[in-house]
């Protein structure tokens, strides 16, 4: 294992003593060593890996590798460059697809309740994109609404997030339309931005991030205020950020349309296209709707929380047969309104990070982006002017056309 090369660098403005704004230089070996150290201490490391067990340092072809977030036991397998976005989301780290809430044992007429899933091992997510990381504080708001959700909380507290700023994006990415960007810091403990030497400048955003880099450099963790669960808002470091995808939709105009009228021509249109498979909701980092069901094995069993989807008819079907959302159009309306009207009304935030996974996963080539566009066109005051809807300026092989980003990668 290579010794990590870390080095203190001062902030651009030369500010001294700003522990949380500390920047550390890190290269791939350094990051792999951090992951290896984490595993050695009994932790779990999750990051982007390709389907084939190719060495991640092998030269990447012109095509973007398809990666998924998965646990690794060999951190050398982590793919830390060249990919745009994982095909799944990192949501399972806080909301697994299925979770045992608790168990039960029946004996005669009595019932004994038994513990659910054990707490997770400390989990290091390496290689989140900013749109993955931002989903965690967004989910927090729902899962902490009026009281805690212990299972969620345990997993959230076990999680440290190392995010890779984006230098490439595809036509599905629209983070810049929802207030995020390729180097947004939200939800990250450490944000890695590519540096001139082929490694990264690591922005330390929380004391979790500080502990990671300190462990890597063999120094004691700097004394920073205790921040047990990472939260927003450390300002984005615009100077380091590549420009990101163009603004692809006027979300404000689309939202005005949804607020102006419950009925929109866009619903019928999306409803005709949608097959109701639910892939969009399952690959979405912010979709969180769930079912609670029993899994019985004789006299004992588990009560489980499972992912569910608003795109299924059974989601809202009453036992009587009546269904408040009887067709795909009304289910598309629910998904869009939940993300851009209902959740914002409750939590003053958006339930979407613009990651584009809903579009990438959809067998019908539909995504939130398309529906938002259709809504914006029909908006009372139309979409705002000056919308850059041109071709992508980020290419899949990681080269970057924009000035800022080119500087970072030069």
């Amino acid at each position, binding site marked *: 294992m290579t010794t990590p090369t870390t080095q203190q660098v001062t902030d651009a403005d030369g500010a001294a003593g700003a522990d949380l704004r500390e920047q550390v230089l890190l290269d791939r070996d350094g990051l792999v060593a951090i992951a290896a150290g984490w595993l050695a201490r*009994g932790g*779990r490391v*999750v990051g982007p890996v390709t389907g084939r067990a190719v060495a991640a340092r092998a030269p990447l072809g012109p095509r973007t590798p398809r990666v998924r977030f*998965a*646990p690794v036991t060999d951190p050398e397998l982590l793919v830390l460059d060249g990919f745009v976005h994982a095909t799944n989301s990192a949501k*399972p*780290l806080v909301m*697994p697809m299925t979770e045992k*809430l*608790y168990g*039960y044992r*029946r004996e005669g*007429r*009595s*019932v004994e*309740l*038994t*513990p*659910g*899933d*054990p*707490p*997770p*091992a400390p989990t290091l997510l390496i290689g989140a994109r900013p749109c993955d990381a931002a989903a965690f504080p967004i989910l927090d708001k*729902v*899962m902490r*609404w*009026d*009281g*805690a*959700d*212990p*299972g969620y909380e345990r*997993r959230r507290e076990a999680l440290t997030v190392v995010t890779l700023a984006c230098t490439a994006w595809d036509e599905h990415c629209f983070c810049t339309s929802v207030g995020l960007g390729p180097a947004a810091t939200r939800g990250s403990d450490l944000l890695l931005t590519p540096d001139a030497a082929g490694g990264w400048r690591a922005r330390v955003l929380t004391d979790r991030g500080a502990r990671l880099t300190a462990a890597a450099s063999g120094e004691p963790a700097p004394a920073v205020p205790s921040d047990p669960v990472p939260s927003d808002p450390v300002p984005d470091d615009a100077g380091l950020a590549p420009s990101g995808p163009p603004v692809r939709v006027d979300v404000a105009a689309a939202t005005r349309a949804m607020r102006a009228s*419950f*009925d929109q021509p866009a619903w019928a249109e999306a409803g005709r296209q949608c097959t109701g498979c639910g892939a969009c909701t399952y690959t979405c980092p912010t979709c*969180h*709707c*769930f*079912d*609670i069901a*029993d899994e*019985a094995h004789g*006299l004992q*069993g588990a*009560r489980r*929380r499972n992912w*569910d989807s*608003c795109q299924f008819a059974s*989601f*809202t*079907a*009453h*036992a009587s047969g009546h269904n*408040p959302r009887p067709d795909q159009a009304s289910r598309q309306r*629910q998904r869009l*309104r*939940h993300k851009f*009207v*209902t959740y914002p009304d409750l939590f003053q935030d958006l339930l979407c990070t613009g990651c584009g996974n809903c579009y990438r996963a959809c067998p019908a080539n539909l995504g939130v982006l398309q529906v938002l566009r259709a809504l914006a066109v029909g908006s009372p005051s139309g979409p705002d002017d000056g919308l850059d809807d041109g071709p992508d300026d980020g290419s899949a092989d990681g080269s970057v056309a924009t000035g800022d980003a080119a500087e970072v990668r030069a």
Partner: protein
Amino acid sequence: MNGDPAAEGTLAPSDPYLPELMEVVSVTQQTSDVKSVRARFLDPDRQRDFRFRVGQFGIWSRFGAGESVFNLCGSSTWHDRLEFCFRRVGKVTDAFWGVQPGEVIGFRGPYGNSYPVQEWEGRDLVFVAGGIAMPPVRCAIWYCLEHRERFGEITVVYGARSVADLVFADELDQWAAHPRTRVVKTVDPGGRTPDWDGLEGFVPTVLAEAGVGGADTSALVVGPPVMIKYSLPVLMEAGLAPNRIHSSLENRMKCGIGRCGRCNVGGTYLCKQGPVYSFEEIMAMPADM
């Protein structure tokens, strides 16, 4: 991506999904497919101290089958037990059908808002229920009868398809025995039996003939959509403003705490902001019901 199998899980009492255990005290078959259940917490202190407001609901567990949402259909003044009443329609309610006294079931709650019983004080009250919708009305009726002096005239209009479909039929006479209280019971045309001593006719018709109303009247109306649709104009013609008529809505629910994402009508979560709404609010709701 599951947890470390070596680590021990815990049962946190603060876990909102963890049910409290209750013992079934008695089960009464109300109709061919409706039963009512009385249960009490295994922990006697919890039973003594438990409080809820009429109109709230619980999420009830039949371990091995799952959870179902049922209204707390007893009065909030009854501290020795909780009651619910259910119709057998599917997986969980099938499993509840076989429940026996002495068996242990689960409960979480109470959830939701409640009926505006304070706003009702000093006013005449009309309770309108259809069929299996009697349980959510029954809790309010008992509550008002137990605080009889606080309310004006009370009229209960209860209808079912046939005599055999009346739920809590044995309590109708007990209610009518209270002062200034009238119970009008009816069955749909063709639903009577030879010894039926009630009316024959649909609820809205019977309600119109009951002569209730006035600006000092409030109403609670729960029942099938068609009953509500035709009863509402009757009450409004009788002088009740839409904000004086309440109902209890039902949507499929799983969590009861605003997280599972399925019970909302437009932007309002029935499990947290409902299930009780005035018709002024209901009429302003989008077509998402």
